[in-house]
Structures are given as C-alpha cells and as structure tokens.
C-alpha cells in the first residue's frame, strides 16, 4: 500500500517535472518570437512610421510658413532653404569622422566639404540680399 503510494508520488513528481520543462521551453519560444518581432525592445510604432509622422507634419508647417513669405523675399527664401538643406552635413560628419580611413570616410569628407560650401555660401549670399532691402528714407 505504501509502495503504491510511493510509486504514485514519484510518477506525479516526474510528470510535474516534464510539465515544468515544457513550460520553460514554451517561455523560451515566446521570448524568441517576441524579440524577433521587436515587441520586447520597443513598444510603439516603427522608426519608419515615426519618421513619416514627423515628415508629414513638417510639410504642413512648411506649407503654411512659406505661403506667408512676401514675394519680394522669394530669392532670399531660396538662399536660406539652400543653406539649411545642407544640414545633410550631419550625415556626412558621421561618415567622415569614424576614426578609420576608408571608402566611407572619403565619401563623408567630400560630402562635408560640399555641404560646407553650401552652408557658408548660402547664408552669406542671403545675408547680402537681405541687407540690400531698405525702407524709404523720409
């Protein structure tokens, strides 16, 4: 009788261990699947959607701001937009200054130089234009 009971207890313990192994395996599997889909690291939309949100909103800002620019200053507007579009220098700096020296660094260096021509040239020529606009002297 007691041997029967003992045997049942051992069987139960074995089944419990198998079950816990299964549960652990399932948990590992779940963790793998969820990390693959990025659910564990980042909760929320993908960088692409975040970027797209910013992009569309910025287009609207640009639309309303630019329509308020007086026609007399459309040339300076082109000068300024030309200068600020050279903010692409941000990408060029990262490429140029990694500390190594290879193909990407050369590309980055040239891009930094080109963007600098634009930044200095664009802001300066706009400054020249704007400083010419004077009011009537009375």
């Amino acid at each position, binding site marked *: 009788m007691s041997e029967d009971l003992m045997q049942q207890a051992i069987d139960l313990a074995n089944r419990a261990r198998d079950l816990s192994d299964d549960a652990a395996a399932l948990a590992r599997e779940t963790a793998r699947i969820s990390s693959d889909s990025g659910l564990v690291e980042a909760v929320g939309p993908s*960088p692409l959607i975040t*970027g797209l949100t*910013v*992009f*569309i909103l*910025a*287009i609207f800002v*640009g639309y309303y*701001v*630019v*329509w308020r620019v*007086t*026609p*007399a*200053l*459309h*040339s300076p*507007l*082109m000068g*300024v937009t*030309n*200068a*600020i*579009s*050279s*903010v*692409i220098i*941000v*990408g*060029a*700096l*990262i490429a*140029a*200054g*990694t500390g190594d020296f*290879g*193909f*990407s660094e050369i590309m*980055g*260096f040239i*891009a*930094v*130089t*080109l963007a*600098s*021509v*634009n*930044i*200095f*040239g*664009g*802001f*300066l020529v706009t400054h*020249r*234009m*704007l400083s*010419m*606009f*004077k009011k*009537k002297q009375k």
Partner: protein
Amino acid sequence: MSYNLAAFFYLIASVCFILALRGLSHPESSRGGLRFGIAGMVIAVITTLFIMPQVNFVLILLGIIVGGAIGTVIAIRIQMTALPQLVAAFHSLVGLAAVLVAAAAFYNPAAYGIGVPGDIKTASLIEMAIGAAIGAITFTGSIVAFAKLQGLVSGKPVVFAMQHWLNLALGILAVILIIWMVAGQSATAFWLLVLLTLVLGVLIIIPIGGADMPVVISMLNSYSGWAAAGIGFTLGNNLLIITGALVGSAGAILSYIMCKGMNRSFISVILGGFGGESAAAGAGDGEQRSYRQGAADDAAFLMRNAEKVIIVPGYGMAVAQAQHALREMADLLKGEGVEVKYAIHPVAGRMPGHMYVLLAEANVPYDEVFEMDEINREFAETDVAFVIGANDVTNPSAKSDPASPIYGMPVLDVEKAQNVLFVKRSMASGYAGVDNPLFYMDQTMMLLADAKKMCEDIVKALEA
C-alpha cells in the same frame, strides 16, 4: 551626450530653421530670421560631433574650412544678376552630398546603426536608395540648369522623338534597380542606380526652355529638400527629415507660383519644349505695322509733367545693368513731385523674386516696389507707364487673343495708362517669341535704345 539629449538639440535646431523661414514674411524681420537659421546649423553640427563615438577632427575641420572658404569667396564675389546660376550650382552640391552620404551609409552602415555591410535593414536600404536617386537627379539636373542660365549651353529646349517614353522607361528601370539592391544587398545595383539617375537628371532638364527656368530652379530646390529628407529617413534623424520637408515644400510652392505667373501647368513645364518655335508664333499677318518712336527728351518731358509714373522693369533691364541709372531717373522725378512706383510681375527675372533683389541692390526702397496684384488696378489712373526690359509680361494679347501662345497668362495692365514709354533695343519679339500689340497702340511711344543709355539720357534731359 545621450541620444535623447541629442534628439532634443536637433529639435531646437529644427525650430530655428522654421523661424528662419518665418522671418522672411517681412524684410524687417528677415535679418533676425537669418540669425536663427545660422544658429540652427551651428547647433546641428556641434550636437552631431558630441554624439559620435570617436571624432576625426582633422578631417572634419579640413572639410569645413576648405568648403567654407570656397563658399564664402563665391558668395562675396557673385553678381546679383547671376544669382539664379549660383542657386542652381548650390543645389547641385546638395544633391551630390546626398548621393555621397547614401554611399557612405551603404558601405559603413554600422556607423549609422542601421546594420552591417551585407545585412542592412530593408527599410534603411529603400530610404537610402530613394535619397541617392533624388540626390543624383538634383545633381545633374542642377548642372544642366546652371549651364543653361550661365549661357554655357543654349537655352533652347532639346527635344527628340520618344523622349518622354525614354524617361519613363529609365524611371521604371530605376525602380527595378532599387528592388534588386534591396533584395540582394547589391553594391552593383546601388551604383547602377546612381549612374542611371545621374543620366535621368540631365534628360529631365534638357527639354525645358530658358523661359521656364524660374520653375526649374524652384523645382530643383524642392528636389534637394526631398533628397535631404530621404537621407534623414535612412539615418533616422528627425532634423534632416523636418528640414528636408520644409525645403521640399518651399520649392514646390515657389514652382507653383511661377507656373501660375506664366499660366502654365506644372506638367507642361516638365514635359518641356516651350520657347523653341519662336519664329512660328508671332509672324501671323506679316504686315509692317506703324509705331511711334521717341527720344529721351520726349520721355523726360512726359514724365516730368506727370503726376504718377509706374516703372515696369524686366530682366532686360538687369542685363543692360540699367538699374542704377533707372533709380537715378526715379529720384529726379520724385524730386520734381512725381509719384513713382515699381510694378513687378511674378516671373520677372530668372528666379523667384529676382527682380526685387536687383532693384534693392540699386537702392530702390522696398516700399516703392509692388507685386502685380497689388498695383494692377493703379495703371488706369497713371499718367506714364515706363516699361524697361520687360515685354511679354505687358502683352495685352494675353488677355484678348485666344490664338496667342501666351493667352491666359496674367499680365500687367500697362495699356490702361495714359501714356506708355517702352524702352527696347529693337522691334524684335520677346523671350517667348510673341509679338506685342502694345507697341502699335496710340498711347505708346517706343524708345529704341540700350536700356542703360536711355535712362542716362533721360537723367541728363531731366537735369537740364
């Protein structure tokens, strides 16, 4: 510096750029706006240097100093008449920089945290390809625009059979190359894409004639913005995305305004070919019509005794470098109690707002200069309209003759003035190759001479 802090500083830089554009709503606020723009750029560059793990300062400083020096010298030396070429050249640099950054990101994706060579994230690859493609089109397209504006190549549209089908085929090919590049992480596909879009940039701009250059420059301005935004998506950098969107929409709006000023649809400008068939347009009746010719003394007499004179300057005035003599003439007239105003057509000059800058350079106060919609109704109560270096934008057949190639284009109502003085080198037709009935109207007096010479002669007559 943590990435969150960097993102915050990038946000500040973005706001600075928005304020820079906002300042341009009035000349008074514009100079303050420009300071915001410069501050934004400085913040952007310094923030970037702080978040980089290692910085090769020698290489970076060398690039900034060399590029900055070149840009500074060019900006100081450039003549204001050559502004359109300069802007086109600058756009080409933005385009090329976008291509190079995309290439750098393709070969060293780890630096941007978008993967390792041969295993770059799919979304990043697509964004990179689009950024590089738009950049390459901007680069060569701007070079062609520069060459046309500078007179290195003819401003005549270059058209050939099946042109648009060829462009369409190349466009489809570009999409296929992007798919190949993304699917296979292929460097070959990347470079083929760059090469193809470089060619496409040339092909897109060559059919567009010189008269449509204001649209082209605005359009390339827009493209340079979209290229920057594409790179911004690749790098996951909101500052680049925001700035690209601002620049892109600014260029698009300017293109729209220029198209409207010429009554052209954007599509027809892009398809090009306008301004090539100049001989066919105006020579309809072929008969010699009579016109009244005058001299500087007559013009001086008319204007001195006028109460109100409106000056209509066009690009021809700038070509003849007549703006200073013109302003001197206007000053003398104002000294005699004549009210003098300037009327500017939206597409006067070769880029948006060009004429305003040329007049400002000659010290014409900006509050005497009016855009077409503001001043058009004043011609009816004006004694003398003084047209100098402009032609098509005063052509009344744009309002009355449906057969005219420029029919429907908004024009200045010059013919409503009591007297029209029309300064012109000869009786040849204008930039669009269209005859102007204004020449033969009773109230018109033609002043056939070089614009600068004529203004100087009128100044002499007024001083006498």
